[in-house]
């Protein structure tokens, strides 16, 4: 398998460039001909002749009044760049006295008259067409066999805003956008290292989605980087609309509720990952970037943990871990204890619970299921509904389904408390996908708790543990550093030690030869400074 990996990896990167598709499918009928009218017509036909194709023909006063055409897709280009370029070209076209020795209009335009930084020659119709689809402006020159693609990509896109998920009280408020270039720039602005590598790829035959693989050379593990390339290159699909597509193709194990790849909307979180040796996969068209390899414990870390003081961060992290277990276990424990192990409850509590449950017609398991499903529906409704209807849903949810259900004797008040507490706890986990995993597991454990009591819950947890122990993210054990136990990496699991004590990068992610991340003896010590 590794042989395939290396051969596949070495061939494919050549196909990364955006013009690769054009080169592959090039055939005799597609080359540019020395006939401007024909070329324009063929190009229009290639692109389907939509009304968003803008074509402007110019005549150069020199070069025997040779004609050339400027073509671009309206809306995909940056208006200001087009304006500047056109202005320059018009001015140039009206000049007469600067006839060049080489005498070709193509060379003249290429070398002297385009006021844009990034230009490249194209030689075929589809190459020119794909360049236009990516926002380039194509200049087709009358008698030349080559055209010029000018990078004028732009158009409307969302500006950098505060991310809507993974919000923090303290920390940067910038979030990734849908624009790949903006996203790479946001990362470059934080990590100004020449070792920051960005490998570009195109995935999706129809969408031709741009993907950037970002990592720090020398800190990310080479085998992981290669594996990321290999797995992305192996994807064959018509379209990639979100990084979730990529995630499902490249994760290590298909059948697991647990996320094997982290995602984030926050440039600072992505950069923190890069600095620890993670590889970031950015997908054009979505603000969510992927981070890999990842461990289970990372999903409980919020970027804010590292901006707040370490003692506060530790406290918050313990709260999060506790919330994860509450979210997963509380309803099933409640069901198990009230159904099978009533003796565990203090007598007074037992009496009050029994009194509440007196009129309830369902067993605890059914009751809990009803309430949990109700809550899941409410939550889903909350996400999908138009914002204006929000208050109506809350009234129905809180009053009708909560209070009225208890008063009608359909569910017990204790169950409502358990379900609400569980629901709130599930929102504490910073990573949404891990929260969802806990939600799914909760239902399985509820059934086990309702049928086998604590024995069932423990059986479920054992299977869960075996499952977690078998998981890997890009070959790295998912439960690291708990198992395999890495004592040095425990500084950022349940507790977060002060920055000056976190001297090494995580062993499983960062390159073995480059683990050290800070100097020694940085603990603040006023006496030492005085001496």
């Amino acid at each position, binding site marked *: 398998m590794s042989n395939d990996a290396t051969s596949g990896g070495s061939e494919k990167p050549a196909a990364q460039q955006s013009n690769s598709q054009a080169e592959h499918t090039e055939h005799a009928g597609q080359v540019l001909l020395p006939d401007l009218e024909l070329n324009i017509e063929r190009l229009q036909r290639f692109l389907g002749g939509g009304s968003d194709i803008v074509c402007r023909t110019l005549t150069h006063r020199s070069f025997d009044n040779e004609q050339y055409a400027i073509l671009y897709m309206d809306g995909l280009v940056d208006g200001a760049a087009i304006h500047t370029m056109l202005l320059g070209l018009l001015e140039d076209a009206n000049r007469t006295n600067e006839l060049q020795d080489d005498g070709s209009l193509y060379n003249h335009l290429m070398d002297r008259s385009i006021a844009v930084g990034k230009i490249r020659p194209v030689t075929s119709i589809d190459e020119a067409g794909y360049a236009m689809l990516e926002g380039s402006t194509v200049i087709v020159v009358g008698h030349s066999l080559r055209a010029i693609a000018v990078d004028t990509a732009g158009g409307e896109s969302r500006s950098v805003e505060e991310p809507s998920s993974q919000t923090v009280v303290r920390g940067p408020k910038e979030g990734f956008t849908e624009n790949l270039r903006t996203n790479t720039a946001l990362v470059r602005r934080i990590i100004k290292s020449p070792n920051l590598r960005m490998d570009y790829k195109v995935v999706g035959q129809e969408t031709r989605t741009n993907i950037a693989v970002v990592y720090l050379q020398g800190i990310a593990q080479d085998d992981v980087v290669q594996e990321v390339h290999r797995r992305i290159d192996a994807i064959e699909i018509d379209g990639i609309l979100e990084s979730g597509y990529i995630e499902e193709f490249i994760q290590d194990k298909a059948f697991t509720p647990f996320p094997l790849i982290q995602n984030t909307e926050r440039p600072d979180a992505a950069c923190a990952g890069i600095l620890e040796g993670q590889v970031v996969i950015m997908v054009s068209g979505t603000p969510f970037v992927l981070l890999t390899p990842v461990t289970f414990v990372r999903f409980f870390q919020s970027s804010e943990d590292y901006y707040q003081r370490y003692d506060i961060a530790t406290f918050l992290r313990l709260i999060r871990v506790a919330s994860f277990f509450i979210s997963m276990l509380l309803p099933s424990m409640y069901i198990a204890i009230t159904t*099978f*192990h009533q*003796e*565990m409850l*203090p007598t007074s509590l037992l009496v009050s619970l029994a009194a509440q449950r007196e009129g309830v017609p369902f067993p605890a398991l059914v009751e809990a299921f009803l309430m949990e499903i109700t809550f899941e529906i409410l939550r889903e409704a909350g996400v999908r509904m138009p914002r204006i209807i929000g208050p109506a849903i809350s009234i129905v949810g809180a009053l009708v389904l909560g209070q009225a259900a208890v008063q009608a004797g359909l569910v017990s008040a204790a169950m409502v408390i358990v379900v609400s507490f569980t629901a709130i706890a599930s929102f504490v986990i910073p990573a949404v996908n891990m929260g969802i995993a806990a939600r799914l597991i909760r239902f399985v454990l509820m059934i086990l708790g309702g049928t*086998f*009591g*604590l*024995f*069932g819950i*423990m*059986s479920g947890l*054992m*299977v869960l*543990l*075996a*499952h977690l*122990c*078998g998981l890997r993210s890009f070959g790295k*054990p998912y*439960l690291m550093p*708990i*198992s*395999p*136990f890495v004592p040095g990496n425990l500084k950022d699991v349940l507790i977060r030690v002060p920055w000056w004590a976190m001297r090494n990068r995580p062993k499983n992610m960062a390159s073995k030869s480059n683990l050290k991340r800070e100097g020694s003896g940085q603990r603040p010590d006023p006496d030492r400074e005085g001496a």
Partner: protein
Amino acid sequence: MITLRQLASTVILFLIGSSSLFLLGGKADRDAWMSVFVGMLAGLMLLGFVTLQIQRLEPNRNLIEIFKLYFGRTAGFVFGLLYVIYYSYKSIRNVREFADLSIMFLIADTPLSVVMLVICLIGGYAVMGGPGVFFRMVEVLLPILLLIYVLLYILLFSSGLVDFGRLQPMLERGFKPVWDAAIPEIISFPFGEMVLFLMFWRYTESSDYGQVASMTIKGYLFGGAFITLMNVIALSILGPFASWTTVPLLEATNFIDIGDILERIDPLVSLLLFSAVYVKLTAYYLGASLAFAYLFGIRLQIAALPVGIGIFVGSFWFKSYMHQVNVGFEQNLKYHFPIFQIGIPIVLLLVMLMRKGVRSGKGRQSH
């Protein structure tokens, strides 16, 4: 594949395993803990001079491969099969303990067959993952379980239940009852059971045999000390009642009562005990499946199926928990298990030494 730390964790939890369910050395009454200690030392000798020596001579082979290599194809197969049966039988006993006690303490009305099926399934799930997954699981479980044990002991001490006076007078009837209780019962259970690790040692990451041996012995000593301590505490809480109760530790925790909140924590304690039993039964299940896989040259995932079915069906053989305990303590420990834990390994070691001696003798001549 298995780190040294995982190996040591598994040795510890494997030893604690089901031994926390019984009062070991109960025949020595209040000196039972001394029997445990003596048994531990005797087991250490067995481990150091026999079991580990076998592995030292063939560090990259498991028991089945060693049998095949030294006893030839047929005899090796027979011995291998015997060990598959022995490991499966041990697993059966643990499944049955687990199931009976679960029904006794946790889920009174559930049919035995269903409980045993669930146990076999959760054991089988871990076995399917292979030794890597199982050993990693134990590594996660061990600190959690030890932490709960420590909390439990703090609770027991703070409830004022522990009275070391109950251990007095020591050696009232001399050392003989202590010795009698220890040999061979306590060697057979739990300390001689280390023979199972002949199936696992070769999967350790470290190629250095010395490290493997020293980590195993460290784990063994920790586990042994822990079992002895558990015995001391059970005796000093329950005194003479300790040997009558079904599960002494569970009985002891029944007395815990702190602030009217923590009145009955015995379901939680039984979960703690059962987790260790689960580790033990899965270890045996895994050992039997590995042995089966090597014996018949099939994949572990496939071997786990017939072995699992065998364990499930075999668990019905005992008529009751008492029957199971009785068969174990009255017959197996005295007559059957020593064959597998002491007899065959010693024979195997002698054969290996002779063969090696012949081989190296030849080698010397040729030089």
